[in-house]
């Protein structure tokens, strides 16, 4: 594994008004790896993601993406960094007033001068990739939750970003679709060399896709484990981590 970090999080602390959600978190994500952030619901996974992509300003600490310090860099540098990332939000965040195709086409129109019929070709390709061919003309309100997730994924992939952030890509999906998404993630990582950061708590997909994971904990407000999922399952001494990987509840 090429050991150069593409994302560096240093001593990050996050607060919503007075509630400390994350306290002094430090980790790196390396080039070309599939990195998974896991933890129970409400432990701050989405919060960590939002801080990593520059949507929220951290209370303390630094976030560096591909050499750009998101908090202190210039506007132009920030814009350039945004071009390198694609994000699938937890609620898909498709634009309700646009069709699925228009949603996917939007970032392409913004960043290229391609003619509309050429853009359409790319859009269809991307929709095919996530198994949504034929649904381009549907509005987001006309497709199911799982399809929205996939449409959101197609939109995140539109610019072939260097880094892909996925917030719970397979939550609420049936096992088959969920497996297809896992395979898609592996494909993208292999074929395009995309670095992928996934937030999830689906054990199955963690073992399928993750090369390295960190686990967050609500009470510690920080990282309680870091490493390969198989290693964590076998060797971790932390009770919460063991319970998580063995699907145990923390009641006796």
């Amino acid at each position, binding site marked *: 594994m090429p050991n150069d970090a593409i994302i560096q999080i240093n001593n990050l602390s996050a607060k919503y008004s007075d509630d400390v959600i994350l306290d002094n978190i430090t980790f790196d994500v390396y080039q070309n790896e599939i990195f998974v952030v896991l933890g129970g619901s409400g432990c701050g996974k989405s919060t960590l993601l939002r801080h990593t992509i520059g949507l929220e300003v951290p209370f303390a600490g630094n976030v560096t993406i591909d050499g750009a310090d998101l908090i202190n860099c210039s506007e132009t540098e920030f814009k350039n960094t945004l071009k390198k990332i694609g994000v699938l939000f937890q609620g898909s965040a498709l*634009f309700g007033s646009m069709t699925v195709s228009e949603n996917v086409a939007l970032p392409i129109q913004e960043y290229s001068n391609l003619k509309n019929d050429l853009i359409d070709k790319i859009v269809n390709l991307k929709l095919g990739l996530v198994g949504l061919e034929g649904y381009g003309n549907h509005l987001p309100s006309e497709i199911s939750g799982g399809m929205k997730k996939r449409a959101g994924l197609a939109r995140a992939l539109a610019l072939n970003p260097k880094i892909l952030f996925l917030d719970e890509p397979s939550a609420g999906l049936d096992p088959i679709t969920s497996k297809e998404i896992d395979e898609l993630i592996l494909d993208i990582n292999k074929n395009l060399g995309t670095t992928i950061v996934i937030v999830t708590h689906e054990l199955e997909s963690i073992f399928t896709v993750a090369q390295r994971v960190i686990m967050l904990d609500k009470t510690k407000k920080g990282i309680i484990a870091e490493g390969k999922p198989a290693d964590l399952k076998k060797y971790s001494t932390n009770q919460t981590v063991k319970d998580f990987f063995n699907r145990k509840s923390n009641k006796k």
Partner: protein
Amino acid sequence: MNMREKERTVLQRYTITELDNGHLYIHLNGRIDIESASNILNTLETKILSTSPKIVTINLDNVSYFDEYGALVLSELRKIVADQKGTLNISDKKNRSKIKASVANFDTPEKTTGIRKSPVNFFVRVGDASLSRMDNMKYFTSFLGSVILSFIDVLKHPKSIRLNDTITCMEKTGVNAIPIVALISFLLGLVMAFMSSLQLKQFGANIYVASLVSIAMVSELGPIMTAIVVAGRSGSAFAAEIGTMKISEEVDALFIMGFNPTTFLAVPRIIASMIVVPILTLFSDLFAIAGGLVIGILTLDLTFNSYIAQTLKTLSLFEVMWGLSKSVVFALIIAWIGCLRGFQTRGGADAVGNSATSAVVTSIFLIILFDSFFAVARSYLW
């Protein structure tokens, strides 16, 4: 089962026997669940408070179903009895351990955190309110700044303007509002002409009805009425649309894709409003004059020609332009406040509703406020 039957079966869930020397014996039977719980608790509480028994025994032998609602009842009764310096015993022939455990659950002193947020005292609330007002003011100005920057940006790169969105917005804000604006203005003209004619008739000054309607409408009421209608129709819609996008992370998605949300969402709406509201105002003026005309012809024996001639004689170009420039400012206020409230939305569906309401209230207030500024400015211009 109808309501009355239900009540009866609930009432039959217990029998109370009073033994001598202050011993109350209560038999519960059947299902003790959410349906029967409050009824049982209320009746037994009244009974216990009125008799103040030393010992209360609750017999559960015939209870067929018992859940945490039942446990809550027993635990509450135990507290009430204890307050009366008595003791409560639970007797259960089957000795079901589940029941005991679930009652014990409620008996232990509260370690639960409150479900509702605890009320805070007056001073904290006043302080919070002032702080949030100040935040609000800060946001007002910073949003205005960001709108201005976006406009400069759009002037520099005219291609970045969302033309289709602007046109759709013009249609929604302008074209679709024509019927209601026309109708309201027509009726307003009608009423104004009628009411003023009652007075002016006495002096034989019928022809001045035309002057009155046209001058009042073109310089004051046309712009105001139109602005209020647009604020109600479109200002609220702007806030709700953007607010919904905000809470479903769509605004975040825009930002991440490298768009400036203000340029993307606010600029088309502001431009569209500033174009269509003056046009709507012109419609409003015309229809009000038409309303006055109808009254003039029907009840004041004026001719079509004389009414129109008098109207034209009264109105100067300055008057019309004055009204229109006011309406441009009102349009700016409506769109600015609508978008601002949209971007301020935080939380869930109720927050979107609140944003829409507050968009209308704030913009109508500002419209009236700025109208007074205009009136003052005008009196100094002469």
